[in-house]
């Protein structure tokens, strides 16, 4: 009975090093990025992203083969044109990834868990946004890079191709920033399962359809400057218009892109306003402590 000890094997305090806020944000960002592609999630959430990545990656291979066989000296589709032509799979990817990023946390009411860590509301939004934007960028940069590889293998002039590729990446970056902002803003207000996905893709498609219809109408009324401006409604045409002027590349839709400096300035303004408004909406959405 003497000399016995009872060991304390209860709750252990952690007295070691604690990594700071930056690390927390970085971890959440990487987690969002991986989750957008279904990594670290159950198998059925890998289906949609990877089908879309496959759909986006296949045409560059076909195009490169075509050039190889026909022996042209430039690609039939430029790096920036490619983005606009495949706007549907890109839009679907955003529609699937954005609700994953923010809707689930709101639906299950776990925001207090996030916010009780050394992480501010703005940190949370920034991390989610960064992760999603990087994911969307990668989804667009991959096929562009495949296109470059194919072009190089087909012995197209290296300098031109590299310049085009860099321009394409810039367009992808601008587009990723814009689409991620739009997607997150919509997803943050539609926490119900499935509604965010449907809402985002519906908005993207409808906006695109309206933009083209308005352009068509303006054209038939000989108001081509309005036709060009109507492109600002559609995210893809917006970015395409900006890069066409900035980079001097061929725009995706030929006649319907801004040509004057004034029009480009309007496009740039619309871009900034949209991204800013989405960011503001997001921050306000999370203003209440529980995020509800």
């Amino acid at each position, binding site marked *: 009975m003497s000399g016995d000890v009872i060991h304390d094997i209860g709750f252990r305090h952690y007295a070691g090093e604690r990594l700071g806020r930056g690390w927390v944000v970085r971890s959440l960002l990487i987690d969002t990025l991986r989750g957008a592609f279904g990594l670290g999630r159950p198998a059925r959430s890998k289906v949609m992203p990877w089908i879309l990545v496959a759909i986006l990656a296949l045409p560059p291979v076909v195009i490169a083969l075509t050039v190889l066989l026909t022996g042209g000296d430039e690609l039939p589709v430029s790096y920036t044109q490619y983005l606009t032509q495949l706007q549907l799979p890109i839009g679907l990817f955003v529609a699937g990834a954005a609700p994953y990023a923010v809707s689930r946390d709101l639906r299950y009411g776990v925001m207090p868990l996030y916010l009780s860590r050394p992480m501010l509301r703005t940190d949370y939004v920034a991390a989610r946004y960064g992760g999603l934007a990087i994911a969307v960028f990668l989804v667009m940069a991959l096929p562009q890079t495949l296109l470059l590889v194919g072009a190089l293998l087909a012995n197209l002039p290296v300098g031109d191709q590299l310049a085009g590729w860099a321009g394409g990446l810039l367009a992808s970056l601008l587009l990723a920033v814009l689409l991620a902002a739009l997607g997150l803003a919509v997803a943050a207000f539609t926490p119900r*399962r*499935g*509604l965010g996905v449907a809402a985002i893709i519906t908005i993207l498609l409808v906006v695109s359809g309206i933009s083209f*219809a308005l352009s068509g109408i*303006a054209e038939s009324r000989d108001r081509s400057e309005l036709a060009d401006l109507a492109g600002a409604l559609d995210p893809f045409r917006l970015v395409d218009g900006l890069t066409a002027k900035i980079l001097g590349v061929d725009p995706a839709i030929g006649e319907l892109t801004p040509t004057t400096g004034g029009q480009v300035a309007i496009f740039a303004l619309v871009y900034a306003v949209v991204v800013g408004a989405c960011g503001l909406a997001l921050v306000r959405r999370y203003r209440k402590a529980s995020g509800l």
Partner: protein
Amino acid sequence: MNPVVMQLTVRGLLGRRRSVLLLILPALLLGLAALTRWAADGSPSASAGLTGDFAMGTLLPLMCLLVGTGVIGPEIDDGSIVYLLAKPVPRRTILLSKLAVALGATVVLAVLPIMAGAAIAGDEGFRLTAAYGLAALLAGVTYTTIFVTLSVLTRNAVIAGLLYALLWESVLGGFVPGVRDASVRQWALAAAERVLGPDAAGWGVQSDVSMPAGLILLAVVTVGATWLAIARLKTLRLTAAD
């Protein structure tokens, strides 16, 4: 048909954020139709372009998706469908009542606006309106039934429905010829093509499928999907909302 089920479903469909989209989209279509008329002076080809591509190809499947998943998806997802299932009401009745509400909503919110859009944008004696009305009705009924069935079968009905309606019918349909034969839109357009007769080609209303084949396929898919949904509802497992 059970009126109480239908009442609850209508209330659920219109009382959520979903309803905002359901009301805005037809309004946008009508606005675009008016603009198209102003721009193209009411030419039926322009009207057919707007209606065939935007309305039938984009708007109709999306509206049917929102409606079809909205009448039963959220209730299965959060488990509140137990209040309908734990009643002495046959499952068949429950599903058919919800399907009826969905079809009604599709007609009112999608088919009628599409017809109105075609008429507003430009028509010749309402023939285009009638043709597209018929096509939208046929396609809408089948789309909505498919999406209701998907909602009963899987929790990810929206994503599955989107991949089908958009990727299968639009993108792949553009590249792979065989796909067009297995597309609801083509089946429905076959009827529109027949109604318009000789004007169909001139106005750009074309289908790869012949009308009898199209109608049969539409009927088979609609009835088959309904039967499948009823069978699955009879054995639905209520897991806790995950």
